[in-house]
């Protein structure tokens, strides 16, 4: 019956051409007994990796909704799984979320059915990576900055203040050149890091968003990256390989995630992180609901659960990320404290420019920006020495 | 007469010194230049090892081998002026017949035109002219055998070694090749050393032969000597055709109490005699009939020339012979 209603409304919407907005759930029924979620590894823990980290068991007992998790390692895998169907929810990152919206794979969320929506960080409530035309296509899950990780033995007098340590050749505080001792991310999205650096250092380019670059701005970013190629021995791709490179390859500074920083500090290595004056790029993930979700009630209950339980607080310490509910840092619902949140970059929100997929139609005009597929092939060229 | 190959108390042992396999166990041997020499023996008797000692694929563990008077103990195969026709021919499958035959000249650095001309000559010698472009796989067994022969002869070796070269051929082809080989050897005047386990082949082709048994030479001599006067019971048994009489029977037939051999041609049937037995087998051979009589536990064959009466199977008869036809020999 519900599907009939959904189909009827969407048909009506199509016929009247009012808006591309799909039907959303208006009321919750009885829990269906399960919910199927596509998630990043480590995002949904039920105490099996570490007993202390469990934000599933209680939900299952309280609601009777069994949580089935399918982990995916890349945004592309997530999109593919959602296209395949059979899942209710996905923890989509900024480079996948808009694709899912554009492809009509996810449905608008009725925030009235999520009581804890009011507790969501005001800075995230209408974030552009899941809000299209004022309609919310999901509920924020977690976010984090791409920090500058550095070796404290080399930077003895305090953290580096600028990303220039990874972009331009210079002598580091230990008296040696940074050549061969810094790393950069092995993904085209790193072009945005270069663009952000240029925002601060070449204001004449007029870059307003590192994800929306016209041809000139884009060319300048690539030039900067070509200079960087001479400094970087190997680009990092896998978090564990980067950690190994900091341990065994003499790498002393690189863009990184709080996750690697935390892991290396756990081994008592002289590692710390900072967000330099230019700011940082970052990622923000959103729980999104499949357009044909078979278990809508459990899905809504789960979304409420992600905001109201220990999940935000514990996941933040587990993953080195930040909660989307600010009070999770202080309310004692989990292991996060004001200090851990600060370490993970909670206060640096304004310095963070979140990953979104570059498209050709941008704020500078339709077709004005360089689309992502060109980022890919050109970044391949840069790493190849072109 | 020059000596082509000489073995001086040669040993070749395999395996650990504590329990060696004595493949060649103290062989002394002289092969005259220009002769057709056969090494005869059952498998494992050491004849092939001796051949490989001449070609250099085996090194003696003791003793000395000389080829035309020169000690070759430290000479590797490719520097010995001897060539081999292998049992499986060992033709190179990726080369055509001409290249196979010219191989020995090619590795010596002879120019293409010259070596191909020589190869054609050799192929003509073995009646395979016009087969030069074929691959070995397209030839019959007999043809391959000739190619192997041509390939070994192209280097003009001073000694040609042949390792059971006719073993893979059918009977008719084999007999034709035997004649051909013999004729070729006569014409070229080369020393041929021929290994075989077929006593008829050895007897019919060789000028002289050595019979091998368990790494030692049991007897060395001309075919006639080997056939008529086998030195040991083993030689008589292996060379075959001759009757081998145990000491008791020799004595009963009027000789001394020793092992003896008696050729079937020298054996006659007699109505009465010191020992009589039953005719157990008859074989018609055209020129005569071979009659086998069981005397006690020993079978004795007699050749009855055509035209003389032949007894029926199961008849009782005795044998007779001239005493000088009886050849006494060692027990082993």
């Amino acid at each position, binding site marked *: 019956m519900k599907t009939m209603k959904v189909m009827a409304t969407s048909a009506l919407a199509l016929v009247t051409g009012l808006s591309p907005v799909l039907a959303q759930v208006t009321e919750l029924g009885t829990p269906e007994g399960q919910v199927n979620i596509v998630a990043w590894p480590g995002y949904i823990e039920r105490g099996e990796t570490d007993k202390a980290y469990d934000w599933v068991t209680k939900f299952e007992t309280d609601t009777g909704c069994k949580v089935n998790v399918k982990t995916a390692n890349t945004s592309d895998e997530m999109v593919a799984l959602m296209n395949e169907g059979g899942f209710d929810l996905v923890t989509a990152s900024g480079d996948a979320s808009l694709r899912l919206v554009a492809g009509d794979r996810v449905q608008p969320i009725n925030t009235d059915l999520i009581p804890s929506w009011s507790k969501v960080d005001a800075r995230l409530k209408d974030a552009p990576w899941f809000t299209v035309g004022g309609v919310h296509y999901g509920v924020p899950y977690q976010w984090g900055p791409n920090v500058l990780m550095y070796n404290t033995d080399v930077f003895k007098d305090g953290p580096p203040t600028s990303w220039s340590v990874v972009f331009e050749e210079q002598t580091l505080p230990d008296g040696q050149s940074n050549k061969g001792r810094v790393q950069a991310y092995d993904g085209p999205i790193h072009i945005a890091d270069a663009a952000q650096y240029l925002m601060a250092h070449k204001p004449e380019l007029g870059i307003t968003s590192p994800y929306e670059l016209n041809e000139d701005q884009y060319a300048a970013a690539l030039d900067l990256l070509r200079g960087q190629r001479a400094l970087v*021995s190997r680009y990092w791709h896998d978090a564990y390989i980067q950690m190994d490179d900091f341990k065994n390859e003499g790498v002393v500074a690189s863009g990184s995630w709080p996750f690697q920083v935390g892991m290396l500090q756990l081994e008592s290595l002289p590692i710390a992180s900072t967000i330099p004056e230019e700011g940082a790029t970052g990622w923000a993930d959103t729980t999104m609901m499949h357009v044909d979700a078979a278990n809508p009630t459990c899905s809504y209950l789960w979304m409420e659960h992600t905001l109201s339980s220990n999940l935000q607080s514990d996941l933040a310490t587990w993953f080195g990320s930040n909660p989307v509910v600010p009070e999770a840092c202080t309310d004692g619902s989990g292991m996060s404290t004001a200090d851990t949140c600060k370490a993970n970059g909670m206060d640096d929100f304004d310095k963070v420019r979140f990953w979104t997929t570059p498209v050709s139609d941008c704020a500078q005009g339709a077709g004005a920006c360089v689309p992502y*597929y060109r980022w890919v*092939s050109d970044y391949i060229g840069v790493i190849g020495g072109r | 007469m020059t000596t082509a190959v000489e073995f001086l108390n040669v040993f070749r042992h395999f395996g650990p010194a504590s329990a060696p396999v004595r493949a060649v166990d103290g062989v002394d041997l002289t092969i005259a230049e220009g002769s057709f020499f056969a090494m005869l023996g059952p498998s494992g008797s050491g004849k092939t090892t001796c051949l490989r000692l001449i070609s250099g694929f085996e090194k003696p563990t003791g003793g000395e081998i000389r080829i035309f008077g020169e000690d070759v103990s430290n000479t590797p195969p*490719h520097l010995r002026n001897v060539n081999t026709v292998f049992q499986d021919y060992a033709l190179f499958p990726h080369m055509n017949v001409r290249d196979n035959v010219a191989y020995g000249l090619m590795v010596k650095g002879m120019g293409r035109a010259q070596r191909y001309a020589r190869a054609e000559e050799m192929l003509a010698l073995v009646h395979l002219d016009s087969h030069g472009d074929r691959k070995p796989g397209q030839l019959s067994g007999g043809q391959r055998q000739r190619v192997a022969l041509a390939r070994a002869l192209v280097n003009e070796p001073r000694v040609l070694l042949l390792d059971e070269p006719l073993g893979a051929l059918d009977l008719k082809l084999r007999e034709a090749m035997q004649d051909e080989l013999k004729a070729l050897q006569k014409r070229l005047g080369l020393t041929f050393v021929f290994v075989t386990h077929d006593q008829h082949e050895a007897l019919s082709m060789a000028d002289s032969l050595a019979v091998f048994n368990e790494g030692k030479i049991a007897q060395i001599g001309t075919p006639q000597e080997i056939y008529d006067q086998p030195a040991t019971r083993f030689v008589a048994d292996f060379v075959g055709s001759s009757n081998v009489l145990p000491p008791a029977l020799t004595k009963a037939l009027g000789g001394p109490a020793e092992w003896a051999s008696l050729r079937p041609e020298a054996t006659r049937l007699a109505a009465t005699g010191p020992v009589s037995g039953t005719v157990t087998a008859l074989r018609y051979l055209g020129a005569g009939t071979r009659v086998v009589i069981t005397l006690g536990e020993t079978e004795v064959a007699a050749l009855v020339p055509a035209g003389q009466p032949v007894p029926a199977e199961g008849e009782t008869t005795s044998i007779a012979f001239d005493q000088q036809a009886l050849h006494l020999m060692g027990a082993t």
Partner: protein
Amino acid sequence: MTTSAILPARGLADRLTALFWRRPKVLLALLLTPPLLWLGVVYLGSLAALLLQSFYSIDEFSGVVKEEFTLKTYGELFRPSNFDILVRTVTMAALVTLACAALAFPIAYFAARYAKGHWKAAFYLGVMLPLWSSYLVKVYAWKLILAKEGILGWAAEQTHTGWIISGLLSIPGLEGSSLSTSPIGTFMVFVYIWLPYMILPMQAALERVPNSMLEASADLGATRGQTFRTVVLPLALPGIIAGSIFTFSLTLGDYIIPQIIGNSANFIGMAVYQLQGTAGNIPLAAAFAVVPILIMLIYLAIARRMGAFDAL
């Protein structure tokens, strides 16, 4: 008592065997249909889909795939940055193949000609053992061996041979802060990982060369070197070609090793992986993927002309 000349059928197996005897083609059809279906539908089908995609192109502005026939995407392969990838990958594959062949030959030769009994077992174990452990584990282990502060660096330091490594790393085009970040490292790991795939077919081919063939060559006056060039090598060529097909095509397609070891410069596999993903540039990914297929076809044609398959 006489028995019938025809024995009674004991059951289904007897009747089936009889059917196959009367109609041999039925058995052939039964045996071949499943693999041919697999080959035809799954394998050739996906290959056709790949080929088709490579003739589409991506719209410059929207980034949407245009499903119209064009050679534009293949043209893009010749853009300098893309052509670099092809040259880099093919060069690496060729060098890895040569190195594997050079390293594998003595090992295969020993195993085929001299190893007996326990030695043979040890050979198989030694060659196969690395194949039993995870490919990723081996690559990560090599990363540790080659790292700046890794085993090799330490050993060089202890033996005062560090200058050899620094010398290698200063060769233009091969620079890196350590072997693990230099193309030399990528090369070494490729050679290690694919070596067994060269040794095994080579050993099988050498084993089929009869000993008498080598003796015949020596007997006819050839030196070891001449025997090797004119007899052993031509006869082992099918095995070497088979091995090189493995090492060459495996290197052409691999995208894990250059990602972990080396200077991050793209290889064909890495480019395909990146292009088909978020970039959505399936046509270019497909065109890249067609390249190794073409190269292998050319390679096989050359090998055939060289007579590599004559002995088959």
